[in-house]
């Protein structure tokens, strides 16, 4: 895994000291809230409904056991004994006191973590495929590029005051597990006909009030041009992005208003001017960074595991978990295990300090001390020997972490919503809990198959409702919580923005409405192998409208 160098370490320590001083001056009344607010936001500190909130960057969603233990310790000591994993592969503490934040930042710095650029109009934490480096379908681990982008974008003086926030994601496989096409820039690592590495470049995607699917600006950008091209995009955006209207300030609006062709021309012109300059990536530097992400020393194992197959046959709970939560690995005899943070009745993305420690221990025992955070608010152990899967499953079950629903109807993504967030119109978490409760039957979930239900408490879309097969958006209707349903969204390589199915539902009605949609899909699909998305695309909204609102 990537380790801080001397420069990173000194820099983060300096930032902690700086913020400690700023907090002390704020508490002593030497600086006003107006002066302090931008400073605290630059350090990831928000004020929410009940308390402050601290957002911690988990670069490209990769964590070590040591880091996970530190997060657990902070949760126990300074929060209420838990943390919340978000759709941005971040961790949020929802109850820290401002007076404690400098100590929390110091504790984070000890394990090479921080909160820099988790807020504000800058380049945010770079996200990546949570199966990076291990997915069976991967061309190349995208994380070295994410790390290069992270280093380049950290406090890049030209891009600290952008018109609006800016999000970059990278993947290294044709299947998009990082919602690439909903980011300001998405890079998909690929090889050209000669076998050379480079990227397909997607630009101008985003969710929020005006959801847009990114446009492909280039089919292939050579590896060495990564930073020059990124800088060219940022420059064009920084120059032309609107600063007069916060709702029109994202790159997606610029791409939409100016047109992708005009934007492409400007970016290419800027790129041509800087391409041969200092930003050209030397091959040795890429290989040096890539070495940090070298695969662990896997033992040579046969592709088939007798222990695994015996457990499949003997234990139905294990078989269900293996079917849903275990994904194929690049290396024979190994697997990727998803730890669902979506127990029925739980809070999507929450993990207790005890659970975090259990995951840290299990990662050490079974996954070379490495953990991933997915943008679907789950955790992943990326390097598990198939022989170890039964023992891992038993240990997870003991910790309440063996929910066998990854990718199924109860694996619901939900933002904090009105239970925590000052911007919310309506609650998300209780809706997720009630829908999960309604659809909880294991056999039924299995029969329904892959289904992505996504819930946001307001139009900012932190719960990715636009990309949900079934999306739910909380709105405020005359002081009452109300929920609008969209259908047919996708955050994968077949990205689509969900379409509003009709008038919204009260908090009471929405659970039944979702169930009616699911039942309609099951009744009308061509067969069990036709996914919800495929069926919706074939059938259109009509049968769902009829189920929800009766015949027109």
């Amino acid at each position, binding site marked *: 895994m990537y380790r801080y160098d001397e420069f990173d370490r000194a820099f983060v320590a300096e930032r902690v000291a700086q913020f400690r001083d700023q907090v002390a001056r704020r508490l002593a009344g030497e600086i006003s809230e107006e002066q302090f607010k931008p400073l605290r936001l630059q350090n990831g500190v928000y*004020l929410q409904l009940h308390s402050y909130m601290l957002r911690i960057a988990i670069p490209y969603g990769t964590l070590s056991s040591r880091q996970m233990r530190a997060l657990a310790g902070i949760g126990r000591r300074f929060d*209420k004994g838990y943390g919340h994993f978000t759709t941005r592969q971040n961790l949020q503490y929802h109850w820290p006191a401002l007076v404690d934040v400098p100590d929390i930042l110091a504790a984070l710095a000890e394990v090479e973590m921080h909160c820099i650029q988790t807020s504000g109009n800058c380049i945010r934490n770079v996200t990546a495929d949570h199966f990076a480096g291990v997915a069976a379908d991967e061309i190349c681990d995208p994380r070295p590029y994410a790390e290069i982008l992270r280093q380049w974008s950290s406090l890049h003086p030209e891009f600290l005051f952008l018109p609006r926030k800016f999000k970059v994601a990278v993947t290294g496989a044709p299947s998009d597990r990082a919602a690439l096409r909903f980011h300001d820039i998405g890079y998909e690592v690929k090889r050209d006909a000669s076998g050379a590495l480079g990227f397909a470049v997607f630009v101008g995607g985003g969710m929020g009030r005006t959801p847009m699917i990114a446009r492909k600006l280039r089919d292939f950008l050579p590896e060495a041009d990564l930073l020059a091209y990124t800088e060219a995009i940022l420059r064009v955006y920084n120059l032309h992005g609107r600063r007069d209207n916060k709702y029109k300030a994202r790159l997606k609006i610029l791409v939409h208003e100016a047109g992708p062709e005009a934007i492409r021309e400007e970016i290419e012109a800027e790129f041509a001017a800087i391409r041969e300059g200092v930003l050209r990536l030397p091959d040795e530097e890429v290989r040096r960074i890539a070495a940090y992400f070298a695969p662990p020393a896997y033992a040579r194992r046969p592709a088939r595991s007798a222990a695994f197959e015996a457990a499949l046959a003997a234990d139905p709970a294990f078989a269900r978990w293996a079917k849903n939560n275990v994904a194929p690995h690049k290396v024979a005899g190994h697997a990727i295990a998803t730890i669902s943070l979506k127990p029925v009745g739980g809070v999507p993305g929450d993990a207790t300090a005890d659970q975090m420690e259990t995951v840290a221990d299990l990662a050490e025992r079974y996954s070379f001390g490495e953990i991933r955070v997915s943008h679907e608010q789950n955790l992943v152990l990326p390097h598990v020997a198939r022989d170890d899967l039964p023992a891992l499953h038993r240990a997870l079950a003991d910790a309440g972490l063996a929910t066998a629903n990854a990718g199924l109807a109860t694996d619901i993504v939900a933002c904090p919503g009105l239970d925590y967030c000052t911007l919310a119109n309506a609650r998300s978490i209780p809706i997720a809990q009630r829908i999960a409760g309604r659809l909880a039957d294991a056999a039924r979930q299995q029969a329904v198959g892959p289904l992505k239900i996504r819930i946001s408490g307001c139009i900012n879309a932190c719960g990715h409702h636009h990309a949900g097969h079934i999306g739910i958006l909380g709105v405020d209707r005359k*002081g009452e919580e109300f929920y609008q349903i969209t259908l047919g969204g996708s955050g994968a390589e077949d990205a689509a923005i969900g379409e509003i199915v009709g008038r919204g539902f009260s908090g009471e009605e929405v659970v039944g409405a979702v169930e009616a949609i699911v039942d309609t899909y099951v009744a009308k699909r061509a067969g069990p192998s036709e996914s919800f998305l495929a069926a919706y695309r074939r059938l259109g909204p009509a049968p769902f409208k009829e189920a929800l609102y009766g015949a027109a």
Partner: protein
Amino acid sequence: MPKPVLRVVTANRLADGRVVFLAGAGWTRAIGAASLLSDPQAEAAALARAEADAAADRVVDVYAVEVVREAAEIVPVRLRERIRLTGPTAGNSVAPSAPRAS
């Protein structure tokens, strides 16, 4: 007869962000102890006092909240304020409970 709508002034405590309400003697965590404001003059005076406390760096985000009296309880009218008062409705992963009374 609809219950008369009163107001209380609320804020978040600067040092730890916890929700507080303006009372005669200062700020309190208990809405039942808050000053109930029944007319615009009283509200304006309370807000002025609260803003002075914000300027003196004791609290942040001062505003007035509509409440009604239900039996012996003071209850905010809007759901958002009820959640601010009693904590997340969905519990958290530790225990579905109200926020710690600090």
